[in-house]
């Protein structure tokens, strides 16, 4: 057995082990606890209705804003010159940061803005949206519109300049350029991002818990939590909610994959080549500036916590509660990120086997991405049901938190690594072999320089997402295992909003700073290479 095939076997075993323990067993355990009666209980069906309404409205509004915003950002970056290239990178970063804002931070910010004594009320705008569905939808739109815009902008940015120029010489109007050039190139990215936004809204936990105010707005996700952690333990009801949630999140995904597979133009991914200021927005010198302000709008609500946190800085028990919580958060984030990167690399390596039929590889790669469509609480409940003999949520379990986050964030790293693994670089490895490099050395000399920034990027992105994740930790925390986002949720529930806002500001800096540094390092490496 060669060194490469030996590694591939180990990678395959590890990937299968991950799939079985972190996804397969929990989901199977969940379905084994289902009863028809509970599944169609009127209370649970009403939760399904609220969840679908909330997620559908949030995703639809975000999509309506995200599509033109993405095209605007790409057009802003497409104006000629290095300045616009920098503007595109900067605007991409602005669009990515809101998505990385921990939900606990977002919730604190929106309480500050929409609350009864919030900023809007003080400005004389009579919007009492606190603890309502409107507040939840608004917060979700601010989260997801930039995310959809980011996907659209990146897809639009890949359209070669020559196509627009050819269309112009043929007399195509702005609308025709959108219809025949931009839409076909961005539509699957748009649908995928909108579907993802819908799933995120279904799975949203802390935002709904804090902004929905508990009973006034309850979704399937918060219902799973309340059936397990509050009042009488209702495992059957929680399992029914979880099963519905699984169905609601995965069905749209399956539909997108199905229709995408039937579209003959789906594989058209031209090499990244910056188009120059032609498209549905035309070529305008003011576009980069407008694009910047449009992207920045979605960050503004979160900046609201900084003045508030500064005022309440003295009342926060920093050393007694906040710093130990930060230590727990960092420990969870680093461990989760390590295992996510390791597992995603193993999965990519096993799926790159030349022995696999291309159709099987595509199917397995799509399946690997689906784990991101399962919520933390659904996985957590399944994990508890499957491994309850060893893992008790009421005792707290670091391993369970890491395992759930591994399943949650696996697809983030997998989506970063998979395109790299698909690029044909076999010729370079062969060239290295003819120059005397053995397989291991050839990999580290030739392949690793291409992978290392992506590995570091994936690690940092997962760590940033993990540090703000609150659902998995809500299920498996103990008094010795309270991370920072959970502390913020608890303080919000105890009406200690000032302290929660200060801790939120710290969490915001930790997670968004990590994401910004990843973007800057990618950009720096890209410029250098």
């Amino acid at each position, binding site marked *: 057995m060669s060194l490469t095939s030996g590694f591939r076997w180990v990678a395959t075993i590890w990937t299968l082990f991950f799939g079985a323990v972190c996804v397969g067993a929990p989901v199977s355990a969940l379905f084994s606890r289902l009863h028809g009666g509970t599944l169609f209980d009127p209370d649970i069906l009403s939760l399904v209705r609220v969840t679908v309404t909330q997620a559908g409205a949030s995703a639809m509004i975000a999509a309506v804003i995200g599509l033109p915003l993405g095209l605007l950002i790409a057009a802003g970056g497409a104006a000629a010159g290095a300045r616009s290239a920098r503007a595109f990178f900067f605007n991409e970063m602005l669009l990515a940061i809101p998505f990385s804002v921990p939900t606990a931070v977002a919730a604190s910010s929106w309480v500050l803005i929409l609350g009864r004594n919030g900023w809007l009320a003080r400005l004389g705008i009579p919007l009492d949206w606190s603890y309502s569905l409107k507040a939840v939808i608004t917060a979700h739109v601010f989260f997801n519109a930039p995310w959809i815009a980011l996907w659209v902008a990146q897809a639009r940015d890949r359209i070669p300049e020559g196509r627009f120029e050819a269309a112009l010489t043929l007399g195509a109007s702005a609308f025709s350029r959108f219809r025949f050039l931009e839409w076909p190139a961005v539509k699957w990215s748009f649908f995928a991002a909108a579907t993802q936004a819908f799933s995120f809204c279904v799975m949203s936990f802390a935002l709904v818990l804090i902004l929905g105010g508990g009973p006034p707005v309850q979704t399937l996700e918060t219902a799973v939590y309340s059936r397990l952690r509050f009042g009488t333990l209702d495992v059957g009801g929680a399992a029914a909610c979880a099963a519905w949630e699984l169905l609601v999140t995965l069905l749209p995904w399956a539909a997108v994959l199905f229709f995408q597979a039937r579209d003959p133009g789906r594989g058209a991914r031209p090499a990244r080549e910056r188009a120059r200021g032609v498209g549905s927005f035309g070529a305008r010198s003011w576009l980069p500036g407008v694009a910047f302000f449009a992207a920045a709008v979605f960050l503004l609500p979160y900046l609201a916590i900084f003045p508030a946190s500064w005022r309440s800085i003295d009342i926060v028990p920093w050393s007694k509660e906040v710093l130990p919580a930060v230590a727990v958060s960092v420990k969870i984030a680093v461990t989760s990120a390590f295992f996510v990167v390791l597992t995603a690399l193993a999965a990519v390596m096993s799926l790159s086997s030349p022995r696999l039929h291309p159709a099987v590889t595509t199917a397995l790669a799509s399946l690997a991405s689906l784990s991101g469509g399962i919520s933390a609480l659904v996985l957590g409940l399944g994990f508890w049901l499957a491994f309850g003999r060893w893992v008790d949520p009421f005792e707290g379990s670091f391993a369970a938190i890491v395992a759930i986050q591994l399943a949650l964030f696996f697809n983030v790293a997998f989506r970063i690594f998979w395109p790299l693994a698909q690029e044909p670089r076999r*010729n370079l490895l062969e060239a290295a*072999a*003819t*120059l005397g*490099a053995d397989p291991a050395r050839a990999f580290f000399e030739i392949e690793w320089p*291409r992978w290392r920034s992506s590995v570091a990027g994936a690690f940092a992105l997962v760590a940033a997402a993990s540090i703000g994740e609150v659902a998995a930790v809500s299920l498996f925390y103990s008094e010795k295992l309270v991370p920072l986002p959970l502390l913020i949720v608890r303080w919000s529930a105890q009406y200690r909003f000032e302290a929660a806002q200060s801790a939120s500001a710290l969490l915001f800096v930790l997670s968004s700073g990590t994401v910004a540094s990843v973007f800057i390092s990618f950009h720096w490496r890209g410029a250098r290479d």
Partner: protein
Amino acid sequence: MTETLFVRGLRKPIADWVLTADFEVGPGERAAILGRSGIGKTTLLRIIAGLEPPGAGSIWLGKEDITNLPAERRRIGFVFQDQALFPTMNVLENVVFGLRMAGVPRAEREKTGLEWLERVRLSKHARARVATLSGGEAQRVAFARAWVMRPRVLLLDEPFSSLDEEIRGELRQILREAHAAWPVPMLMVSHDAKDIDELVTVPLRFQEEQGGSMRSVFRFLGESRRS
């Protein structure tokens, strides 16, 4: 020291046809494999380089049977059709890669690398990223990279394709000079009549039999044009 390359009784089934080969290329000889596109020329070079298993038969360098030797231990220089330059390294790092793998100290390998870049008229580009090179410059880097490790055999897979005639002429000259300085067996694949006319001393032709299911390369006894 240079040795003769022997390809003996090679028989490699590929899809629905079989490639067979039986020939040798001596020190200082420049052989070309001739035949239509898709006939198996590149496959033959890859088998000699150790990038593909030969099926049956053997490959010898002088008195050493290298049939089962891994590619990285054959010391056979290969100039790839697409150059296969390493994009994360600069020009000089690409050129000295083989010396680095052989454990040559940094100062020595950089000195040798710069000498070779001088020889291929690229010394000004030593620290440039390979992505910034033109097609002709990239091909010269690929030549230098293959030559610098003093290979026992040099294989070239359509080294001048997609270059204009002026650059081809310049590269042929560089190749002749380098080969005169280090006269190892050289085997190339080319479709260009001028390459064959100006460079090649031993033409090796593909013969198709049984409706193309048997494709053979062999050297007619004593076949060579000039040395």
